[in-house]
């Protein structure tokens, strides 16, 4: 029996957090997760900033899904103030959200490949991710914090749809021809991932797992379908669901979602109506409260916002997907080998900046 810590700083982790496992030989018999190393008190700060500052603040919750958080903040304000968003802005938000999903999934696929020691595939994923970042930069002018959303619309228009389409088609092409075949058929990938870190459907519901984690465990939840927001009800796409609940299923789900996102971006760009991209001046936010949620790359994000009629929100609560998914790491790790631990925790696509806020 030995206690082996993974983290807070470890080559397998992108961000500080700690999972301490008790092992008998190389078999994990218990696991304890510690978070909070990235705690910045963003919820606390948000109550002390006005709405304009709040957008910039919430953008910094996460370095990968930053667009999601400004979108959520703006949607919460829109929900409280019953503000309508112009049609074109809805499509632009879809393009941004899906490009960000591409970014997130490709980054995750790269990290997963790195963890199973498959460096060549890691490089393929990251070169694709680089192209997605170029797309995002082309649209928003920024590579990480895009500053695209504002209550009642978006800040920038998509001026060069042709280049976005070209890049997205390349990504879809390489994903179909290289990434998915290697990920799904390579015997070494399969040997490392199939049957590893199983999360049963029952556990997934009890622990409240969301996003690709839940969909890999046979739960068909995707807010883009079940509670469509922005322009998703106008677009056609599939939600991949697998029953196995293992790491391999999560890889397949995310790989297929990359293709679905490419499809969505193409449709959104082609169907985008002409018109304004935002309303007028920054609206006044009346008294009220709202609870909004959307499907971020890693799963459902929930924002609760309460307003007391001043220029600052009375309470902003942020529930990120990793916060819901991370506790499942314990059930998934029990009985598994130590060499699988890094992969199992990574299969959640954890984001600790999000979790800790």
């Amino acid at each position, binding site marked *: 029996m030995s206690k082996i810590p993974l983290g807070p700083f470890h080559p397998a982790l992108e961000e500080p957090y700690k999972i301490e496992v008790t092992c008998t030989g190389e078999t994990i018999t218990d696991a304890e997760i510690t978070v909070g190393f990235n705690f910045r008190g963003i919820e606390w700060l948000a109550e002390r900033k006005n709405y304009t500052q709040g957008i910039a603040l919430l953008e910094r919750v996460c370095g990968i899904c930053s667009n999601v958080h400004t979108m959520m903040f703006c949607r919460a304000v829109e929900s409280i103030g019953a503000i309508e968003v112009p049609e074109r802005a809805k499509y632009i938000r879809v393009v941004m959200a899906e490009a960000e999903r591409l970014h997130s999934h490709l980054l995750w696929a790269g990290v997963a490949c790195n963890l199973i020691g498959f460096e060549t595939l890691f490089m393929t994923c990251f070169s694709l991710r680089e192209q997605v970042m170029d797309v995002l930069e082309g649209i928003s002018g920024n590579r990480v914090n895009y500053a695209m959303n504002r209550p009642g619309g978006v800040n920038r228009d998509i001026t060069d749809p042709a280049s976005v389409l070209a890049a997205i088609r390349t990504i879809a092409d390489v994903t179909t021809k290289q990434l998915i075949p290697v990920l799904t058929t390579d015997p*070494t990938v399969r040997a490392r991932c199939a049957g590893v870190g199983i999360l049963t459907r029952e556990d997934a519901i009890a622990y409240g797992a969301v996003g690709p984690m839940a969909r890999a465990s046979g739960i068909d939840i995707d807010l883009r379908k079940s509670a469509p927001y922005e322009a998703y009800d106008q677009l056609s796409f599939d939600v991949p669901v697998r029953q196995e609940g293992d790491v391999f299923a999560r890889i397949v789900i995310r790989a297929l979602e990359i293709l679905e996102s490419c499809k969505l971006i193409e449709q959104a760009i082609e169907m985008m109506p002409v018109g304004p991209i935002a309303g007028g001046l920054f609206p006044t936010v009346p008294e009220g409260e709202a609870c909004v949620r959307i499907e971020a790359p890693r799963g459902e994000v929930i924002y609760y916002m309460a307003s007391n009629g001043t220029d600052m929100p009375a309470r902003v609560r942020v529930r990120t997907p990793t916060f819901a998914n991370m506790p499942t790491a314990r059930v998934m790790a029990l009985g598994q080998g130590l060499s699988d631990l*890094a992969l199992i925790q990574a299969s959640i696509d954890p984001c600790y900046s999000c979790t800790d806020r």
Partner: protein
Amino acid sequence: MTASFGAIQLLVFPGLLYAFVAGFFMEWLQRKINARLQGRIGPPFYQPFFDFVKLLGKKPIPRPPLQGFIMTALPAVSVVATLGAVAILPVLSTGIGFSGDVILLVSLIEVGPLLAVLGGFASRSLWGGLGASREAVMTAAYNLPFLTALIALAWNSDLSIGLLATTAPWHVRLLAMAAILLCLPAKLHLNPFSISSAEQEIYAGATTEYDGPRLALWELAHSFEWVALTGLFALLSVPMVGVADLWRVLIFVGVSLAVVVVLSVAAASTARLKLAQTARWFWLWGFLLALSALGLALAGI
């Protein structure tokens, strides 16, 4: 073999000088191929040598005297033993070897992994220990087919490396060489068998706690291992009877580098397996291959 030829063999070819140059070159070749396959530019050819020099120049972390001594002595002995293995490779016709040099060679090659296991435990770190125990299991896994394949080759010869390639029938040699080739990635810590140095799981494994010159010695021993193992493969696979020395050297170097290329490509296109999977792989498929070679050799077919 006269003393002067012996000195040349130890110090110049295929010993120290060649091993030093070829070892770093092979390491570079592996890194370069890996990089090109991954769409990167890769390091310049002198990079492994510069890495080595830089490590040598670093001041090691102070350690208790005995531990410091052990942690220096283990990699140093590993360097010497692996160099010995390179030096007794009978490449030149003047140093054709002696009866039983296979056994000496194998034991010298095995000193490296053994010392790495000891070194991992001696560093008294959790990760060093984990790496060492993985290395130990790996040694047990790949040596079964590796040694069986060597025995199959040596069955009809007088246990001399120079004769192994010529005396064993071609089908025995084919099977045995395939088994040996399977074992090489594991011996060289390459994918898909890079388990004992899986940095995402256990940092650098056995050498985690080693720094500066001590780590440089491990690196040097590792590059000598490249030369010894690919060289052994070259000598066993190409029968060189009545070939002029120049050709012998060229074939030896050429085949060695070809093996590096094959191993590098295989490593770049695979993920890392798990320890249990590797052990099963070697004990089942590797051993089956080697055993059939031995069976054929025994039956004299």
